[in-house]
């Protein structure tokens, strides 16, 4: 099998950039959400459609980023 329909898009969540990378492996869509800078993976998910996989990854990323505290420098 091969990764097909590969796509990436960026959005902002709680003031942080998030990149969603999705693709299809066989019948399953996969999505990873990373924090762009520095690029660490925040969430991985699967779904029957790209939208479903993306939403699951985005929900988890949103939860994690909501806990991130900014310090006054």
């Amino acid at each position: 099998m091969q990764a097909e329909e590969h796509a990436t898009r960026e959005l902002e969540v709680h003031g942080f950039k998030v990149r969603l990378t999705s693709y299809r492996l066989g019948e399953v869509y996969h999505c990873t959400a990373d924090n762009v800078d520095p690029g660490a993976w925040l969430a991985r998910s699967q779904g029957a459609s790209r939208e479903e996989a993306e939403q699951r990854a985005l929900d988890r990323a949103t939860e994690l980023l909501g806990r991130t505290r900014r310090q006054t420098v």
Partner: protein
Amino acid sequence: MADYTHPDVLVSTDWVAQNLNNPSVRIVEVDVDTKAYDEGHVPGGIGWAWNTQLCDTVRRDIIPRQSFELLMTASGISNDTTVVLYGDNNNWFAAWAFWQLKIYGHKDARIMNGGRKKWIAEGREMAKDKPAVTSVGYTAKAPDFSIRSYLADVQQKTAPQSVDLVDVRSPQEFTGELLSPPGLPETCQRGGHIPGARSIPWGQACQEDGTFKSHDDLKTLYANNGISGARPIIAYCRIGERSSHSWFVLTYLLGYQNVTNYDGSWTEWGNLVGAPVERGAAAAAG
């Protein structure tokens, strides 16, 4: 490979695709989240979990020599095997594995340029099954810690400013605005950076597709930040994996001598009682 000093340590995704069945090559995906490997990986590749197989699970350290030998043996890797490493998070943990293989003296370790990200983006073949592995004997060399910095090394060498210290975290972690990468656990009590450190985030060494920039671009990147290779260099990040990536760049792609990875990194320094900390923007290069 773009005039790198040691181009033999990098292989392209094309090269890997052509060597999937090469018996002298073992392909290893190194992840912090091994579900990625289970989902699909380079055909014939085995998976290593960074946090449980490359790190001691009791004390904070790399695995000891005997455990390393067992891992290599169980992975079907002999002392003569060409080990090709790639992984998630832009090859951060693959770079850590490379660093660890060099500590234990493995001769032929290489990194797949662009990592898992590029392999997938190119629509290359993926497998879900784990390959059958025949265990072979492996004898590690005595650990070479000349490529590792411990806390005491950093404390002793940074006070008189006899080394160049490179902080490869994001600018927000460097200034102290964030205590961790966004969305990840905070592992320190204080934010900021080690006094005197230069901020050169790891990602500046890479192109959009995850592959490394050219030798000349890398040299310019570091030179513009006051790092020429004329003095010893210590790279650090939060837990030592991003700095493994930069250590790889500085040592193998640019060929700078005496580069070490301080894997204790900010998780160690940012928790020390009484340690000096700088906050705010990067110091000017010079």
